C-alpha cells in the first residue's frame, strides 16, 4: 500500500550537502526523539497546571495503564513496520487470546496455565499471519484486515453477547498488582520489553537486518538475508506481545468480552508513527516509540482529568497521527520554496 511515486518527493533534493558532520550532541538535540521529549515535558507541565490531581503519584501510576498494554505491542509493531510490513490484527489477537484464556479458566485452569494459554494463542495468531505473509507472499495489510475479522469473529462465535468473568485472584496480579510502591507490574513489563526490543533493534544483527529489509528487501535478499524467515519471526513477536498484552488487559479488567481491545490497532500504529517510525519502513527507533507511548498516555490521562469524553480523545489521536506526519512534510515543502 505504499505509494512509490510520492515517497521520492519527501527527500528534498535542492538542499545543500553539509561539508562536515554535526557533532553527536547536536544531532541528538535535533532528533525526532528530542522533539517528542520536549512535547512530553510540555504536556506534563500543562497537565499539572490544568488539574491539581495530576501530580499525585497514585494518579500518575494509574495513568500508565493508558499506554503500557498498547506500548508492549507497539515495540514489536515498530520492528514490523520498519521491515515494511504491518499488522492490523493486534486488537483481534488480544480478543482471541483473552477468549482462549476465558475458556481455559472455565475448564478450571490456574493462573500459570492461563498465562501459557494467552502466550500460546498470541504466538499461534502471529504464526498464522506470518505464514500467510512470509510463506505465501500475500500483502500484510489485507491479510491482517482478514485475520482481524477472523480472530475477533471467533471470539464472537464463542461468546456472542455474553462475557467470561471470575478469573482466579492470583491472575489479577498482572494487571492490578504492584512491584513496589506505585510501580505497577505492567509498567515493569513495559520497561523490560522496551529494553529487550531496544537491544534487539539497535544492538543486534537481527535489528540491522530488519532495517535492511525495510529499506530494500530485494537488496537484502541478494545480501544473503532470509527475508521471509525474518518477517515470519517479526509477525511471531507481534503475536507474542499481543498475547502478553492480552494477559495484562484481561487481568486488569477481570473479564473478557468479544469487543475487548477494539480499536487497539489504530492506537498502536499511532504510537509507532508518532515515535518517528516511517510507515514506509526502513527507519525509526525504540526510544522514540517509548516517548511516544508516554506522550499518548499523558494526553489521554490529562484530558480524562478534564472530563473530556473518550471519543473526543480519539479525534485528538487522529489529528495527532496525521499532524505528526504532515507537519515535517509541510515544513520541508515550505523550505524548498
Amino acid at each position, binding site marked *: 500500500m505504499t505509494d512509490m511515486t510520492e515517497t521520492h518527493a519527501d527527500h528534498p533534493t535542492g538542499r545543500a550537502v553539509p561539508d562536515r558532520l554535526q557533532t553527536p550532541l547536536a544531532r541528538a538535540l535535533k532528533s525526532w526523539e528530542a522533539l517528542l521529549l520536549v512535547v512530553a515535558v510540555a504536556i506534563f507541565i500543562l497537565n499539572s497546571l490544568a488539574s491539581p490531581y495530576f501530580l499525585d503519584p497514585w494518579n500518575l501510576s494509574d495513568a500508565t495503564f493508558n499506554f503500557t498494554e498498547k506500548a508492549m505491542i507497539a515495540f514489536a509493531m515498530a520492528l514490523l513496520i520498519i521491515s515494511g510490513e504491518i499488522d492490523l490484527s493486534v486488537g483481534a489477537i488480544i480478543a482471541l487470546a483473552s477468549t482462549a484464556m476465558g475458556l481455559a479458566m472455565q475448564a478450571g485452569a490456574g493462573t500459570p496455565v492461563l498465562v501459557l494459554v494467552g502466550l500460546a494463542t498470541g504466538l499461534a495468531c502471529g504464526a498464522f499471519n506470518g505464514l500467510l505473509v512470509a510463506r505465501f507472499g500475500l500483502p500484510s495489510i489485507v491479510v491482517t484486515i482478514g*485475520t482481524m475479522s477472523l480472530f475477533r469473529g471467533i471470539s464472537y462465535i464463542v461468546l456472542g453477547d455474553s462475557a467470561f468473568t471470575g478469573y482466579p485472584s492470583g491472575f489479577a496480579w498482572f494487571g492490578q498488582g504492584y512491584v513496589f510502591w506505585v510501580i505497577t507490574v505492567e509498567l515493569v513489563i513495559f520497561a523490560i520489553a522496551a529494553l529487550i526490543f531496544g537491544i534487539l533493534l539497535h544492538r543486534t544483527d537481527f535489528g540491522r537486518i530488519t532495517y535492511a529489509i525495510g529499506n530494500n528487501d530485494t537488496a537484502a535478499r541478494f545480501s544473503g538475508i532470509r527475508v521471509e524467515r525474518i518477517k515470519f519471526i517479526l509477525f511471531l513477536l507481534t503475536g507474542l506481545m499481543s498475547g502478553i498484552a492480552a494477559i495484562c488487559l484481561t487481568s486488569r479488567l477481570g473479564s473478557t468480552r468479544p469487543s475487548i481491545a477494539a480499536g487497539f490497532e489504530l492506537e498502536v500504529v499511532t504510537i509507532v508513527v508518532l515515535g518517528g517510525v516511517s510507515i514506509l519502513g526502513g527507519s525509526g527507533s525504540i526510544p522514540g516509540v517509548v516517548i511516544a507511548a508516554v506522550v499518548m498516555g499523558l494526553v489521554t490521562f490529562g484530558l480524562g482529568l478534564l472530563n473530556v469524553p473518550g*471519543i473526543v480523545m480519539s479525534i485528538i489521536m487522529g489529528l495527532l497521527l*496525521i499532524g505528526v506526519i504532515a507537519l515535517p512534510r509541510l515544513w520541508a515543502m515550505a523550505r524548498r520554496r
Partner: protein
Amino acid sequence: MNLLKSREAILGLAILVLLAVIATRFPAFVRPDNLARVFTDTSPLMLLALGQMVVILTKCIDLSVAANLALCGMIAALMDGAGVPLVVILPMVIALGAVLGAVNGVLVWLLGIPSIVVTLGTMTIYRGTIFLLTDGAWINAHQMSDAFKAFPRAVILGLPVMAWIAVAVIAGFVLLLSRTALGRAFYAVGGNPHAAVYTGISVGRTQFAAFVIAGALAGLTGYLWVARYAVAYVDIAGGFELDVVAACVIGGIAIAGGAGSVAGCVMGALFLGIIKNALPVVGISPFWQMAISGSAILIAIAFNARTNRAPGRIILKQAEHRA
C-alpha cells in the same frame, strides 16, 4: 483477458453454488422477490465497494468510508430535522462526502502521506465529529420527515429506489472505467505509476480523484442508510469499512493496484450480502458473520495471488483486445 474472465466466472459460479446450497434447504430464499430484497439490502455495500475499488486501483486504500457515511448520514438527518427539503439534502450530502474524501485525497496527493495512515486518522476524526455535533444523541424515526424516510423505499418497476441507485451507479462505473480518460488513468496509475507519469498522467491528482469519488458515494450512501434504517447515531456502519475492503478483495480487485473490474467488485459485494442475509435463514447465529467474512477475505487474497501474477500485462492484453 481469459484470466480476467475466468476469475469473474469462478466468482459467479461460487455465488450460484452458494445460492443452490441455501435453496436445497430453504427454497424460498431464491425466489425472485427475496433475491431482489437481498440485492437492495446489499446496495450500500456495493456503492461503497465501487468507490473503494477506484481507490484501490490507484494503490491506495480508504478506511474512512464508513465513518464518512455515518457523518454524512447524521448531517442529512440533522438537515431534515431543520426542515431542509430532500432535493437540497441529497446534493448537499453527496458534496459533503466528496469534500471529506477530498481531505483524504489532498493529504495523499500534496503531502504524500500513505493513504492507510491518512484514512486511519480521518476515520476516527470523522466519527468523532458526529459525537461533537450531537453529543452522542440518537435521531430516531419519529424525528425524521416522511419524505426523508420514504425516498429510498419508494418502489419503481418492482425495485426500491435504493436498488435503482445501485444499478445506476454500477452502470456509471462501467462507463467511467472503460470509456473515459480518468477511468483508464486509474488503471494506469495503479498498474505502473512511473509509466503513468511518462504518459502525462499525474499520479497524485488521479489518486485525489479516486478519493473524491469514494467520498461522494459514501455521502450518498450515508443518506440512504439513515433513511432506510430510520435511525442515526455515532456508531452506525461501525466496522463497515472492513466489509467494503472484503467485498473488493473477494471481487478480485488487486490490492497492489491496477487490476480489477466492476463486475468482480459487484459480485464480491453480493457474495457477502448473500451470506449475511442467508445466515439467519439457515439458522446460524449472526455472530458467525465476522469470522466468515474474515475467512472469505483470506481465501480470496490467496486465490487472487495465484491468478494475478502480472496485473500490468492483463491490462495491456485487454487494451489490445479492444483496439
